[in-house]
């Protein structure tokens, strides 16, 4: 494999267009956490014309519900949750400026099509490598829905978070390609 490339959040179309499936990246900058309930609320807020807790333009959402931080620590363990549960909401967020998603597992056709239309990228993080991934999180601050506990929306500053491009803005799907390549009769 080639050396990972370093990228910064928030993302621009130019950066997203350079990312192809299988590319390893080290992500730095500001990203936001959101999962099931937060996604439902975002979509409801957009429908009602209300502002979201952060600016969606160019943003990256990390599908994660971290474990609590020990005293003196930034965050607990923070690996990706399964992404398909966010599939019903992701296209609406992309339409409103979302540029990147971080999670694990395959996305549906609706999401892949919306990624092509809105120039968006989906990064896979290694499920179960939560202690390792947490090492790349340097700041964490809950900015909305605190009552949701692990599901609250958190602003994260990350430094060199290890990710791989799982779906690109050209319709590429590493999960499908990888499985096809290695399957045996």
């Amino acid at each position, binding site marked *: *494999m080639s050396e990972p490339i370093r990228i910064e959040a928030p993302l621009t179309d130019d950066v997203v267009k350079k990312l192809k499936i299988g590319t390893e990246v080290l992500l730095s900058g500001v990203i936001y956490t959101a999962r099931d309930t937060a996604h439902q609320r975002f979509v409801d807020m957009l429908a009602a014309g209300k502002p979201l807790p952060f600016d969606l333009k160019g943003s990256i959402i990390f599908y994660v519900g971290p474990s609590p931080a*020990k005293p003196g620590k930034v965050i607990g*363990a923070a690996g990706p949750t*399964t992404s398909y549960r966010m599939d019903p909401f992701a296209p609406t967020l992309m339409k409103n400026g979302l540029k990147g998603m971080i999670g694990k597992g395959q996305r549906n056709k609706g999401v892949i099509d919306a990624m092509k239309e809105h120039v968006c990228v989906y990064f896979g993080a290694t499920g*179960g490598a*939560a202690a390792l991934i947490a090492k790349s999180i340097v700041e964490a601050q809950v900015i909305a829905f605190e009552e*949701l506990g*692990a599901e609250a929306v958190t602003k994260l500053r990350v430094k060199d978070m290890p990710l791989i491009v799982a779906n690109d803005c050209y319709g590429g799907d590493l999960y499908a390609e*990888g499985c096809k390549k290695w399957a045996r009769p």
Partner: protein
Amino acid sequence: MKTIEVSEITRVITDLCVKACTVLNADMIEAFKTGLKKEESSVGKAVFEQLLKNAEIAETDGIPICQDTGFTVVFLEVGQEVALTGGSLKDAVNEGVRRAYVDGYLRKSVIKNPLTNPVNTKDNTPAIIHTDIVPGDKLKIKIFPKGGGAENVSRIKMLTPADGIKGVKEFVIDTVKNAGANPCPPIIVGVGMGGTFDYVAYLAKKSLLRKIGERNPDEKLAKLEVEWLEEVNKLGIGPGGLGGRITAMDLFIEEFPRHMASFPAAVNIQCSAARCKSAIL
């Protein structure tokens, strides 16, 4: 007759929960190392490397291996010569879980009423408790925190006896195939056969308590375990679901007699964060 104070059970359960979530068992570490050697896909190798490094960081820093510290499943084998004093066994178990998750900085993932009042219970209780009364004067405790991702892709099927070995095998392989990358491969596949609709799921779950490489004592089942594992690993899903040879690290089968009209089968998938810790009082 042996007397055990339930407060002792609480203490042990707390300790086991924290250890289970933060320290990966030696057999899993070995399985990752074997996987790293055997895997041919470079992305797959990288996933094994990450999992090994992750386990090391979790243990050193005392933080969870995976942020999903699971629904706490507790297996109790209570010797019939044991007298439990000082309170309710169930309350003692739940108190142990509560202390572990609240004081041990583990994630609380339990939602009170699934549909009508979906609020977090804030202490990861209640635990799922399976109690078996057995001969003897010992109390065996096994803690098995089970993450949501792999539970979500687990399946039960009521086959017919005519479906036979081919039918069960197809069901097992299809379940793993449909699960794809979602349950955090490399996975462990737990298969239950026989019993009733409810019991077969328990069998599949119980099979996952075995250590990697531990075959069913029944020779025929042991052979099927090896064969089906090989079939599963032809799927190409691979570590992280990104393609590779090693989709599953092991496959376990547990069986029980069945009704002559039924053939219940269950597949319980276990993610790479296979966490089980036990103690004997």
